[in-house]
């Protein structure tokens, strides 16, 4: 009888109710608002499973097995990247390689937030972010790239994995709300109306096949810590572009991605135990995640404006904001903004180019941070 009653007795803990609220809120955001539903729904349900008192799903249950088998050893984010790579068409970037630099510029939020986390952690009386590794794990939310955030957080701050993942995916889904006001604050209407010619030349299949191989080798040699991330992304892309592994490419894009997303989501959700999640550090991380996205956007836009000082053919500075990873959401947002100013302005090809550049840059940023932070 006491076995049956202990679950009910366990409900006396307020943290159980609070975490039920968090789990249900994630499910509500997924179902009602359609914010990253493929991830937030499994996460929300995983959160419920983990917080039921004396749940058999955790404490040696199947969610613990999944956590050890897929998160602790970084397997799930790597598998997700194979699927992401198979979905990405690097064509727009290869047609207009200058867009790479916007990908680089828009990683600014990572480093700004990392510094902010370090400084805030040193204010007496504020719940601390103890060291460089934790600050780097929080900053990497600014990669605007879920798997990279999970990968870095798992290595540097496993205790902060849940809030970092929640922040990363939540803000990725909120890009249409976060980016427009930042862009409007930093640009004039005339700048937002700048037209850009679409590149006319086609990219040969040979280039598309060589590109993922060469990028893997170069990035791997420069930053060996990035090999797992960039290698899996580019492997997926090679499956797509080779033209001879269509079945594998489709499997990576659909079945593999879906399967791993289910497991990743529910497992991350299961790490949201009340004791670890409900503390001021979580709130700080959620707030800093927003700051990271804002400064990513600002970094990209301001870099575009800086380049325009030296160019005859001006770049629409909104393109800089697409250098944030968040693919393909950011490119869509910028195209929509361009058309709000001028209904016949199509900058989507450039926007997509900068957006996939952001995907590469965010992985490089993750690899460099893993290599440099001790």
């Amino acid at each position, binding site marked *: 009888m006491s076995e049956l009653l202990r679950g009910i007795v366990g409900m006396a803990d307020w943290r159980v109710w609070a975490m039920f609220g968090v789990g249900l809120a994630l499910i509500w955001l997924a179902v009602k608002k359609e914010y990253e539903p493929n991830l937030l729904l499994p996460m929300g349900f995983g959160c419920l499973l983990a917080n039921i008192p004396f749940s058999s799903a955790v404490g040696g249950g199947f969610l613990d097995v999944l956590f050890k088998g897929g998160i602790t050893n970084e397997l799930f984010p790597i598998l997700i990247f194979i699927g992401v790579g198979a979905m990405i068409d690097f064509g727009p970037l290869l047609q207009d390689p200058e867009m790479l630099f916007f990908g680089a510029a828009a990683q600014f939020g990572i480093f700004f937030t990392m510094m902010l986390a370090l400084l805030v952690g040193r204010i007496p009386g504020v719940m601390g972010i103890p060291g460089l590794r934790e600050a780097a794990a929080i900053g990497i939310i600014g990669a605007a790239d879920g798997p990279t955030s999970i990968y870095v957080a798992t290595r540097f701050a496993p205790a902060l994995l849940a809030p970092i993942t929640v922040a990363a995916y939540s803000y990725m889904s909120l890009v249409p709300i976060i980016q427009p006001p930042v862009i409007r604050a930093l640009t004039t209407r005339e700048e937002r109306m700048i037209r850009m010619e679409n590149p006319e030349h086609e990219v040969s299949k040979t280039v598309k096949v*060589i590109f993922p191989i060469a990028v893997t080798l170069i990035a791997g040699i420069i930053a060996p810590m990035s090999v797992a991330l960039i290698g899996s992304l580019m492997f997926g892309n090679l499956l797509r572009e080779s033209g001879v592994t269509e079945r594998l490419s489709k499997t990576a894009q659909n079945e593999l991605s879906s399967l791993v997303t289910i497991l990743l989501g529910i497992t991350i959700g299961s790490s949201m135990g009340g004791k670890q999640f409900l503390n001021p550090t979580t709130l700080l991380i959620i707030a800093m995640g927003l700051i990271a996205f804002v400064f990513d956007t600002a970094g990209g836009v301001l870099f575009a404006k800086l380049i325009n000082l030296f160019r005859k053919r001006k770049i629409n500075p909104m393109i800089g904001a697409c250098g944030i990873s968040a693919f393909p959401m950011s490119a869509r947002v910028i195209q929509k903004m361009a058309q709000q100013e001028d209904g016949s302005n199509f900058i989507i090809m450039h926007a997509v180019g900068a957006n996939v550049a952001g995907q590469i840059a965010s992985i490089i940023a993750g690899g460099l941070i893993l290599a440099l932070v001790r």
Partner: protein
Amino acid sequence: MDPVVAEGLRISGLSYVLIFVVLGIFYGLIKLLLKMFPRRDDSA
């Protein structure tokens, strides 16, 4: 300055610069590839 903050500043600055360097190398790579294989080439 707090040594951890100073180290963070050093790593942040270096990482940000290195991202530009690495992507600059990719830029050169793409330019080279486009020059070597200029047009549609479906024979690959």
